[in-house]
């Protein structure tokens, strides 16, 4: 039965139910117990693992601040019979453990001629909005989507957060799991029982005939707000949420673009070599005949994320920018 819970609790419930189902599922990271010396009663930096140690004392571990070692340990544990979920905390810390993801996790299976199995998940917070500055606000999924061997999940709501996490844990390939920090306390209907959201299947968030809007993460909600505003002007957007960047549900995007003839891609990440430019390029290559207007990208700037709230907010695409881009595609001027 579904009830309304937060994105954060949806992720915790997925971890809880999977550890309960399968004793080889283990969870570790900095403060995942919340202070080993405190018997699990104190600490816990962010929440998705809060309380899990008391329930699963043999499956939850605290790590030193040592990302290369514990992400690499996830690779080795996965290759030797466990299903680890390692918590990187902020995706920005990818920099200190990238070799383990880029050269080890992603490539073990291929390099061993298909013999290795690496069923691991790396959880990480991402995204602009929390006033954390340039080293705690990035959206690095383009780097990871680029790497064959990895899967990349980017849930935008509590239902997908739980279903994608359960899928990620049960998946036999390494999965990078992006948790938007500004969505942790967003609410949504989530079934109590375990379920999976399959990778590579986009969600049709809203149907419409005039313009396809593809958005990920927090931008799905921005795209919805824009679509609601535009509907008042008689412009009907079709909003798609790919949910996973790798694999990418190209077919659903193409099907929508063939229907609407227009595409706006919304991503808070910087524009160069990003998910937005990737989707734009794929559509330009494969659906050119269907396009009635140039593809538009609405993204963050090619700049690090600034600290000052005034400056940071300028980095985040808002409903107005998305709506403008759609109006531009359909050839309508903004109403006065």
């Amino acid at each position, binding site marked *: 039965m579904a009830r309304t819970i937060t994105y954060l609790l949806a992720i915790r419930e997925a971890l809880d139910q999977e550890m309960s189902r399968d*004793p*080889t599922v*283990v969870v570790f990271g900095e403060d995942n117990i919340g202070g080993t010396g405190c018997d699990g009663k104190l600490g816990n930096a962010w929440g998705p693992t809060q309380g899990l140690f008391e329930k699963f004392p*043999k*499956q939850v*571990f605290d*790590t*030193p601040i*040592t990302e*290369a*070692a*514990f*992400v*690499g*340990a*996830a*690779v*080795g*544990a*996965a*290759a*030797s*019979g*466990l299903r*680890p979920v390692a918590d990187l905390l902020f995706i920005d810390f990818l920099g200190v453990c990238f*070799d*383990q993801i880029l*050269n*080890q996790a992603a*490539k*073990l*299976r*291929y*390099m*061993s*001629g*298909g*013999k*290795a*199995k690496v069923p691991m998940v790396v959880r990480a917070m991402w995204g602009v909005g929390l006033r954390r500055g340039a080293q705690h606000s990035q959206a690095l999924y383009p780097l990871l989507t680029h790497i*064959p*061997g990895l*899967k990349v999940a980017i849930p935008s709501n509590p239902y997908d957060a739980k279903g994608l996490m359960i899928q990620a844990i049960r*998946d*036999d*390939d390494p999965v990078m799991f992006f948790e938007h920090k500004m969505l942790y306390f967003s609410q949504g209907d989530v079934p109590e029982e375990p379920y999976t959201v399959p990778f*590579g299947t986009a969600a049709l968030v809203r149907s419409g005939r005039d313009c396809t809007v593809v958005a990920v993460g927090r931008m799905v909600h921005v795209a919805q707000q824009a679509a609601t505003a535009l509907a008042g002007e008689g412009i009907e957007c079709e909003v798609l949420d790919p949910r996973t960047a790798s*694999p990418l549900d190209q077919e659903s995007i193409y099907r929508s673009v063939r229907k609407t003839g227009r595409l706006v891609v919304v991503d808070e990440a910087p524009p160069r070599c990003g998910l937005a430019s990737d989707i734009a390029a794929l559509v330009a290559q494969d659906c050119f005949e269907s396009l009635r207007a140039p593809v538009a990208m609405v993204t963050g700037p090619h700049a690090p994320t600034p600290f000052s709230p005034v400056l940071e907010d300028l980095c985040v695409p808002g409903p107005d920018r998305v709506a403008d881009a759609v109006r531009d595609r359909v050839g309508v001027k903004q109403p006065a």
Partner: protein
Amino acid sequence: MSSADHPADLSKDLLAEAYRVMRTTREFEDRLHAEFAGGAIPGAVHLYAGQEAIAAGVFAHLGPDDYVASTHRGHGHAIAKGCDVTGMMLEIYGRAGGLCGGKGGSMHIADFDVGMLGANGVAAGGVPMICGVGLSAKVRGTRQVGVAVVGDGGANQGAFAESLNLAAVWQLPCVFVVEDNGYAQSTSSRYHLHGIDVARRAEGFGMPGVVVDGTDFFAVYAAAGEAIGRARSGGGPSLLECKAVRYYGHMEGFDRQAYRRPDEVAELRATHDCLDLFVARVTADELLSPADLAAIDEQAAATVDAAVATAQAAADPDPADLLTGVYQSY
């Protein structure tokens, strides 16, 4: 670590197997050196010749369900861990039927079926994985042990230091083996280790660390037995530093070893050859007979000959395999 105390503990079978591993590896590497010079082998090949006593002495304590994470110089580890020699040769030639289907090559040679998690193209790249193996053994309640091997160069990587700490904090059944063969590529370990044994770092992480003569099989075997026994019985991780010698350059092809004294390798071969030392010891102590040793020599040469012949005659990989094995499902 004195090696004189232990030879009587070693069975004839164990010694014969150790000698087979060492001799097969030497034949394998010497042959690769020649074949590479003849242009038959693509890519980068790093030879283990001179260091055979380390793989033989450490891995003699491991079973097929124990795990090893190796280095770029991994052929000796693979042979000692039980990888098929013909499969290895096919892999190094990049042919169909290779241990990794021709997708790994010398630098990524692996066989998960025998616990060989792979050579590694990144210095210390495989070391953190061994922490995961140790965690896995602990969580699943097995007595498996993980052994990470790293060169003197890799020992300076942050991932190595981080792994020692994590293994100590989690008290993992892991052994970290440092093979100091004198050079990180071409940089002397006297320079890049600042003249300080890596084993001394163990104390800083609260684990035992010892230095052994890596050319002395008996010394390596004894020290590794202690460390692996400790790991297997829940006593936590250890660091074992083996002072080794490297006969060939960092890699085959262009390394003229101008950074070494002209007579350095010849001297090492004359005075520090691990196979010569092993033979002298087992012969003097009458542990293996000259006939036993000769039979193993013959078998090793025949095994490598057959492997090369098979590799040279083998087909290239099927182009259809290019995209297999990227994912379990996608």
